[in-house]
């Protein structure tokens, strides 16, 4: 009990120290916080009413965001199928799946916005760097999900097909795939929804999509237009969520 009490005290001291260190070394001016209220009110005031004349830009930007999400997701699925198989205990041996899993964890650790900035530098402005960034970033998660879907199936039918003389790919197709298909459908839709959400902001670093217009309007102080685009983004997210729920009911 005594050691546990000491552990609790040490953890508390550590947290307190971290908070104090952050306050002491960061320029947190209370006066700026206090004057923020009126400025936020002014900011919101200029957003209302949203300017409906940007409908064209909204449609154009949304369509591009959707295209980035669709093509980025397609790229992620194509990369995740082989990587998912290579990261699964059921299909390959430890010397293969361990390094593949480490690689996937490494990919997941790189923030999307960083990948997008690098890709803008590599291939230039527009939707292409966004598509590449989404495909790369989403593979880290999707391949892991696919591997877990493979490893999560009941083993007995796999053993039965092996006993009947079926090879590894035939076992994957007829014993593993029918069991994992609903999980794969659910995970892929979930990842597509995330891709769509994340591609909304890619425009901020020049990687295409509707985020580009929010950035442009905020920078040029056209807050009413920025508000319209933001509302459109929220509408898109809600719509995707609704479609997602419907599809999940259909598949699971």
């Amino acid at each position, binding site marked *: 009990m005594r050691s546990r009490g000491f552990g609790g005290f040490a953890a508390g001291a550590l947290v307190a120290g971290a908070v104090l260190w952050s306050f002491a070394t960061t320029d947190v001016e209370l006066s700026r916080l206090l004057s923020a209220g009126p400025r936020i009110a002014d900011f919101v005031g200029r957003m209302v009413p949203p300017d409906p004349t940007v409908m064209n830009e909204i449609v154009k930007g949304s369509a591009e965001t959707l295209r980035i999400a669709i093509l980025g997701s397609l790229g992620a699925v194509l990369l995740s199928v082989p990587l998912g198989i290579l990261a699964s205990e059921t299909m390959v041996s430890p010397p293969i799946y361990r390094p593949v899993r480490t690689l996937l964890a490494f990919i997941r650790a790189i923030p999307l916005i960083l990948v997008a900035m690098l890709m803008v530098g590599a291939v230039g402005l527009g939707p292409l760097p966004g598509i590449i960034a989404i495909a790369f970033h989403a593979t880290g998660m999707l391949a892991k999900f696919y591997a877990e879907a493979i490893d999560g199936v009941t083993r007995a039918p796999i053993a039965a097909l*092996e006993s009947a003389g079926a090879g590894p790919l035939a076992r994957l197709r007829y014993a593993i795939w029918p069991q994992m298909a609903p999980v794969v459908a659910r995970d892929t839709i979930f990842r597509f929804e995330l891709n769509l959400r994340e591609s909304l902001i890619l425009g901020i670093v020049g990687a295409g999509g509707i985020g580009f217009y929010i950035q442009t309007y905020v920078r040029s102080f056209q807050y009413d237009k920025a508000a319209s685009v933001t509302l459109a983004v929220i509408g898109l997210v809600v719509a995707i969520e609704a479609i997602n729920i419907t599809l999940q009911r259909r598949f699971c």
Partner: protein
Amino acid sequence: MSAAAQIGDLSFFHPGASLPALDHVSLMVPAGESTALLGPSGAGKTTLLALLDGRLRGWRGRVSVLGAPLDPDHPPARASRPDVGFIFQEFALVERSSVLRNVLNGRLGRMSPLRAVVGSPAPCDLEAARAAIADCGIADLAERRVDSLSGGQRQRVAIARCLAQEPRLILADEPVSNLDPARAVEILTLLTGAAHARGATVLFSSHQPDLARRFADRIVGMRDGRIAFDVAAGDLSDVATADLYRETEALPGIGLRAMT
């Protein structure tokens, strides 16, 4: 008399176990007959069947199945596996697939590797699957998904999958332990009858002496990983059966006998 399986001085320990699952087992399974492995839970019946199916590694002894020796360190060649069919205690079916698809899965080892993965089944595979389904009396269920079937129907699908494989030796692990007595008799009638019609050898395990007597030509008693007896079905005595199922010696600290 030729042997479907020949076992000499076979011993096997499950990984990490201190007691053997199979302890110096020697046994001959006669070809074309039906043999029952009889014994209480933990006797080693399932282990012996899985080993004959080529699924266990690291055993010691001599084992040959359908005339070909098994290698204790390597799985059998894929080409030879369809000759040995296995019926699993828990059916081992793909629940979300149709009955026909599950039965066709039994044909995968007989197809070319390419057709098994990407092709559609050839007419001969479909024919074998349909025939096995008809023999098992489930023709009207062929398009149904397995997860909508009862236990008895599932066992029929599992048997049909095994028959579609056209095995020369059928190994069945407690094929009726999940079924009620009437269903159990039906299933064993079906299994031994279909095997006999095809000239295949059957080796099935059971813990029910009356079923073993009724459906087997030979009965092999197993207990604690050893062969207790190996007799013609008509020669099985009640004394031998009672001895097979005698109470386990009380372990130190567990006073089972003292309590009764």
